[in-house]
């Protein structure tokens, strides 16, 4: 067990991958000598050289597109997209090519490309640096999407993503990069399956489903609710595609109430999928409709008002109140 930040855990996970897997390589803008704008790849070019840690031209479609070609040749590229808002020039390659290559080749070809995307707000940044576009990828079959919320998960999930033979997008909660926690580098333990949700806190009155940056927020909300006498179960989804509906449904059958929170706008967000499917699976158990907490239907607002935009403890508690009022 070692204590480290999420950023460091990903760095160590990538180091382990590069060491163990000679056909893995990293690609992206500024990931070389700079070590990435968040220093997630710090020191790796010095250790593994410029053929394994590749500073690319500034072109996201080119990054994803060449990664696909490398994967076709038997390599396992891990691409870094510098910020959530800059993945869109690469959207075509991800959606029409990466996601479909295995299927359209009738299973003959695999393209185990990993795409790392720091995402989410709360860092007081400028435009395009605080977005949560996960739903825009979850709708596309062929992709897998995971998001760690703590250093131990981060260390293992990045390696599991590379090992997975399907393309995987790893959304990294950038405002939690400096969150510290214990990492067991010897064994993943309960983190063995990156596509399984984790019940982080048990409860009986309501379930709160969150992922990535909102996990600490939900835990804090559950603490606050406990003071008011409400027992709240908190689930860290971990995987956004596929979603571990078994774990969520089981919880809701017990608690009878579900709140789903994410930073992405509510309208058309992944919360709708969760609400719809859980409502179907646990119709008779639900004492209240699933309440969603998310961003408003607007472009991510300027830094000075992002607190009004982002789901926080109060917003989750307000949703809980509404759910309990049924």
């Amino acid at each position, binding site marked *: 067990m070692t204590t480290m930040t999420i950023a460091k855990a990903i760095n160590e996970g990538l180091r382990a991958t590069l060491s163990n897997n000679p056909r893995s*390589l990293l690609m992206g803008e500024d990931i070389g000598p700079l070590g990435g704008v968040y220093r997630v790849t710090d020191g790796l070019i010095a250790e593994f050289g410029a*053929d394994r840690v590749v500073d*690319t*031209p500034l*072109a996201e*479609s*080119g990054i*994803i*597109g*060449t*990664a*696909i*070609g*490398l*994967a*076709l*040749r*038997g*390599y396992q*590229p891990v691409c870094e997209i510098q910020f959530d808002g800059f993945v869109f*020039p690469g959207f*075509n*390659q991800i959606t*029409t*090519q990466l996601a*479909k290559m*295995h*299927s*359209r*080749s*009738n*299973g*003959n*070809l*695999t393209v*185990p490309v990993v795409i790392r995307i720091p995402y989410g707000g709360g860092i007081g940044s400028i435009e395009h640096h605080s977005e949560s576009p996960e739903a825009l990828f979850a709708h596309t*079959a*062929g992709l*897998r999407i995971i998001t760690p919320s703590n250093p131990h998960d981060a260390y293992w999930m990045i390696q599991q993503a590379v090992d*997975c*033979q*399907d393309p995987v997008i790893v959304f990294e909660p950038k405002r939690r990069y400096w969150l510290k926690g214990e990492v067991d580098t010897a064994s993943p333990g309960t983190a063995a399956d990156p*596509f399984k949700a984790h019940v982080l806190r048990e409860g009986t009155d309501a379930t709160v489903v969150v992922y990535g940056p909102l996990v600490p927020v939900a835990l804090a909300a559950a603490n606050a609710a406990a003071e008011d006498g409400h027992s709240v179960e908190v689930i860290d989804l971990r995987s956004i*595609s*596929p*979603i*571990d*509906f*078994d774990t969520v449904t089981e919880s809701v059958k017990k608690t009878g109430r579900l709140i789903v929170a994410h930073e992405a706008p509510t309208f058309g967000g992944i919360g709708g999928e969760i609400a719809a499917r859980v409502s179907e699976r646990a119709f008779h158990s639900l004492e209240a409709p699933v309440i969603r907490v998310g961003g408003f239907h607007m472009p991510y607002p300027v830094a000075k008002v992002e607190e009004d935009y982002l789901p926080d403890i109060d917003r989750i508690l307000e949703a809980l109140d509404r759910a309990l009022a049924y």
Partner: protein
Amino acid sequence: MGATHLPATEFDGIEMDDRLEAEAEAQLGDPAGPMVQLLGPDGTPGADPVFSEYAERLDAEKLRGFYADMAAIRRFDQEATALQRQGQLALWVPLTGQEAAQIGSGRASQPQDYIFPTYREHGVALTRNVDLAELLRQFRGVSNGGWNPKDTNFHLYTLVLAAQTPHAVGYAMGIQRDQKLAAAAAAADQTPEPKAAVLVYFGDGASSEGDVHESMVFASSYNAPVVFFCQNNHWAISVPTSVQTRIPLSNRAKGYGFPGIRVDGNDVIAVHAVTEWALEHAREGKGPVLIEAFTYRVGAHTTADDPTKYRESAEEARWRAKDPLERLEKYLRAEGLADDAFFEQVRTAGDELAAYVRKTTYDLETPDIRTAFANTYVEAHPLVAEELAWFEEYSAGFADEAKADQAISDGTAHP
């Protein structure tokens, strides 16, 4: 304006506009600039200080082979068009007119090279020994990728224009890395793999897509062993090349600092020579090359297209006069390299190919959506499993219903 001050173009900045206009206009008909040609439309051979050497390496058998390939793929094209008319194919994308560009370049590749086609490269497929019946699967609507690229190093067709170009560069970057590993292995006394390169096809229309640019940037930056092969067939569906560019497309290479060559795309000998040179160049670690094959799509864009809406038949006629097969036939006959018996034999082989294709198309398996469930992911996926389970139950319901209906009409139903 002093030429020294505009190093970035060969145009005199002030007078360039008139010249550009004139040049652009000229290009709409025949190309204005020089273009590699080793076999004229009338079958007379040309000479070239660099590429003649490559042409001289071709013996009679090779040349007859080129002809046989071109004739075979044209015959195949006709058969596929007929199959589409008969409703056996949903769509067909004819290549007639582009045989030299495709056979010449495909035959210049080595087995260890990897090829990324777009969707009209049936001639290249032939040179890679792709089973042409498998190739029709896509157009019959039974598969999105009818063959296994690993068998032939001929990638699947890509329908999103230009999307395959960065794949090609990435693949070439992989070859570079493999060569370093192979060099290490060779030092350890193993036989080294033959050097390989990537050949990627795209059209004059697709050349406008951003992906082509990003691919060339990456290729140049990493000096990747990739040859960009642009078939300028004068049309992107109904849009003439002049909308995509006002100067020859081979010029695009100038922006990235690697060679760009315009070749007569209806001259199979020249295309072969230029591509062989370019692939050698790439394999030897000298970096990317752009080839623009100046050719013409004589038929419709697809069987769903109607060229009379957008071009004059006189233009088509002008290009038919430059037919790639006819000019090679003239040359072979004039040089005494092939006789009537040969051409008769080619015709018979074509008919056999057509018969084979017809038969195998009728026989092509009907797919099952369960395959699509199975191939969406490599690894197990709960949502896919859930939806498949629903589908099985749902389908079984129909089967039960059908059985029940049958039982009722049979009179065997229990009340």
